[in-house]
C-alpha cells in the first residue's frame, strides 16, 4: 500500500487539480518545479537554517509526566506551540516563500481561518520584504482579533471575505479569485494540505519535519523511533499530515486524526468531515466534502476557527478510506475541557484546535507501556477570548 501522491496528483481516488483554466499556468508552473526546487541543496540549506534560527526548531518532544500518570501511558507532546508565531503553520510558509522567490514571484496571497496561517504568512513576507494580502472570513476576523492585528503590525493587508458563512472556506474562495486576477506576479501560499495538486503534497512535505524530528527524538529518548500512537487534530489536516508523514509506512504505528464534532455530529453543527462528508470537489481537489444532496457545500461549525472547514485534504481522505488513520471526533465542550485540563496538568494552554487532539485521550484505552505522541500544534494565546467566553474554568 502506498500513501504517497501519484504522478497525476492523486491519493487513491482523491486529489487531482480541478481548477478553472485561468489558473492552469500557475498550477502547472508549480507542479513542474516544486520537487526540483525543494530538493536543491541551496533550498534545503536555507530552509533548514530558517527553521532552526528563525522558527526555533527542533521543537522539543516533551514527556508529559502528569498527563502520563493520569492516562496510564507514556505521553509525549510535540511542542509545535513553541514555534515562532505560535503554531506549526510557519514550517509551511517558510518553505513556500523560499519557493515563491525561486519562481520569481513578488507578491504573496493567503487565506486564513484561525489566523495562525495568516500570521505565519505575514511573518515570512515581512522577513523577505514581500507584499502580502491575507483573506480572512469576516466572522473569523471578529473571533480572532489579536491575529488580525498581528498581521497588520507585520505590514500585511487583511481583506475580509464577506460571502457564505464568512469563514475559512469563503476566505479560500476569495484568495483563489485573487490569484485568477493576478496570475503572473503572485504566489498563493495555501495553509493546509488542501487545494489542487501539487499543494497537498507540497504542504505535507514542508510539515513533515514534525514527524522527522519525532522519530529522531524518540530514538534518542527511548532508543526506538516508533511510538505506538500519533495523535493530531484535523481541519484541513496540515499538522496531522506533518506528524503522520514519516510513520505512514510503519503500519504498527497507530495514527489518530481528531476532527471537530462541534455541538455533536448529529446536531447539524459540526465539522467532522469523515463522518458527514461524501466524495466531492472543492477548492481544486477531489476529497471528502460536507455537502447537501444537491452538491452544495455545507457550512461547517466548530468552536475552533481552525477546524471549521467543510473538507479534509485528499491525503487524509485516502488515509481514512484505506483505514491507515483512524478518525475520531470530539465536541466543543470536550475540547474546551481538555484545553483547561492540559493547562492545569502541564502548564500549557493549547490552541483550541490542538485541545481536540488532547480530548481523545480520555476515550482511548492504553497499555502502560504505550508511547503516545500528541502533536501540540499550537498555543492558546489567540484563543483567550474564546476560553473567556466559554467560561467554565
Amino acid at each position, binding site marked *: 500500500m502506498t500513501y504517497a501522491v501519484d504522478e497525476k496528483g492523486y491519493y487513491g481516488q482523491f486529489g487531482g487539480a480541478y481548477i478553472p*483554466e485561468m489558473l492552469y499556468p500557475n498550477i502547472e508552473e508549480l507542479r513542474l518545479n516544486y520537487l526540483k526546487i525543494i530538493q536543491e541543496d541551496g533550498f534545503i540549506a536555507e530552509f533548514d537554517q530558517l527553521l532552526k534560527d528563525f522558527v526555533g526548531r527542533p521543537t522539543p518532544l516533551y514527556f508529559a509526566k502528569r498527563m502520563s500518570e493520569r492516562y496510564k501511558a507514556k505521553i509525549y507532546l510535540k511542542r509545535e506551540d513553541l514555534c515562532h508565531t505560535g503554531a506549526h503553520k510557519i514550517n509551511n510558509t517558510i518553505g513556500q516563500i523560499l519557493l515563491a522567490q525561486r519562481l520569481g514571484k513578488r507578491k504573496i496571497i493567503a487565506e486564513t481561518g484561525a489566523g495562525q496561517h495568516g500570521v505565519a504568512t505575514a511573518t515570512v513576507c515581512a522577513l523577505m520584504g514581500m507584499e502580502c494580502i491575507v483573506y480572512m472570513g469576516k466572522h473569523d476576523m471578529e473571533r480572532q482579533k489579536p491575529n488580525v492585528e498581528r498581521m497588520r503590525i507585520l505590514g500585511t493587508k487583511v481583506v475580509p471575505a464577506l*460571502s457564505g458563512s464568512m469563514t475559512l472556506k469563503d476566505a479560500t474562495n476569495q484568495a483563489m479569485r485573487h490569484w485568477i*486576477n493576478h*496570475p503572473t506576479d503572485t504566489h498563493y501560499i495555501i495553509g493546509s494540505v488542501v487545494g489542487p495538486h501539487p499543494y497537498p503534497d507540497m504542504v505535507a512535505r514542508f510539515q513533515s519535519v514534525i514527524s522527522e524530528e519525532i522519530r529522531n527524538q524518540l530514538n534518542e529518548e527511548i532508543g526506538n523511533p516508533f511510538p505506538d500512537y500519533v495523535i493530531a487534530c484535523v481541519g484541513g489536516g496540515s499538522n496531522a499530515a506533518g506528524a503522520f508523514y514519516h510513520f505512514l509506512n510503519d503500519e504498527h504505528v497507530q495514527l489518530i486524526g481528531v476532527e471537530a464534532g462541534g455541538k455533536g455530529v448529529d446536531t447539524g453543527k459540526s465539522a467532522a468531515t469523515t463522518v458527514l462528508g461524501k466524495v*466531492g470537489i*472543492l477548492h*481544486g481537489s477531489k476529497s471528502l466534502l460536507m455537502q447537501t444532496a444537491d*452538491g452544495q*457545500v455545507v457550512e461547517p461549525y466548530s468552536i475552533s476557527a481552525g477546524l471549521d472547514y467543510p473538507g479534509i485534504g485528499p491525503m487524509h481522505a485516502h488515509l481514512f478510506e484505506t483505514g491507515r488513520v483512524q478518525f475520531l471526533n470530539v465536541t466543543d465542550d470536550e475540547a474546551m475541557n481538555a484545553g483547561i485540563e492540559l493547562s492545569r496538568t502541564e502548564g500549557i494552554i493549547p490552541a483550541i484546535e490542538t485541545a481536540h487532539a488532547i480530548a481523545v485521550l480520555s476515550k482511548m484505552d492504553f497499555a502502560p507501556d504505550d508511547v503516545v505522541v500528541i502533536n501540540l500544534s499550537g498555543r492558546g494565546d489567540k484563543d483567550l477570548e474564546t476560553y473567556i467566553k466559554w467560561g467554565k474554568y
Partner: protein
Amino acid sequence: MNRIKELFKSKRKSLLSVYYTAGFPTLTATIPIAQHLEKAGVDIIEIGIPFSDPIADGPTIQESNKIALDNGMNLHLLLEQVRGIRKCVSLPIILMGYLNPVLQFGFEKFVKEAARVGVDGLILPDLPVDEYLLMYKKIVDENELTNTFLISPTTSEKRIRKIDAASNGFIYAVSSSSTTGAQQGFSTEQESYFKRLQDMKLENPFLIGFGVSNHETFAAVSKYSSGGIVGSAFINLLKNSTDLDSDITRFIKGLR
C-alpha cells in the same frame, strides 16, 4: 442535429450568447427569460447551474448564485425548467456550472437527462481537459452534446491546440486573466490576444466572454471572433429590472 453545431454551420459572425443564472432573480424566471432572449434575437442561451462556491466568478454572478440557491434552485428543478423552455424556445441551450453539483447528480445521468430535455452543450469551468478526455468525453459524445472549454490570455499555444482538439462545438475565450465581471473596454494587449487567437485558425470557432457588457465591447470582440458572451452585465440588468420583456429587448438591441 445538435443546435450549436447547426448554428455555427450557418453563422460565424457576431453571434451573441447570453448567460444567466437559473432561478434568478426569482425561481420561476428561468423560462420567461429564455423566451425574452429568443424574441430579442440572441443566438445562444447559457443557463448557469448555481453553486455555493463559484471560484471563477466575480461578485455579480456570485450574488446571483446565492440568491438562486436561496430561492430553492437545484439541478433537478433546472432540468425540469429546460424541458419547459424547449416547448417554446428553439435556440441552442448550454448549461454552465461547477463540477460538484453535477457529480452529485451523477455525471452520466446528468448528461443523459440534459440531452433528453433539449440541452445542446455544457460548460464546466473546473473540469480540466485531461480529466475530461479520460473520464467524461465519451459520455458527452454519445449523447451528442457539445462541451466547451475556457482559454485565457495566459493559456499556451500548445494547450490551446490540445483544447481545440478536445472541443466539439466552440471555445470560450476569456478576455483577460480575471474572474467574471463587466468591464468598460479592452486594452491593446487584450486586442492583440484576440488577434493571436484569430490567427491560430483553430478547428473550432471561438466566442469571447468576460468583460463584454455593451455595444462597444461586443463590437470589439466580434471583430476577431465568432461573437461574444455576455454574463455579469445581463445579471445586473435582471437584478434591477421591473419589466423583463422590455428591459431585455432594449438591452439586447443596445448590444447589437
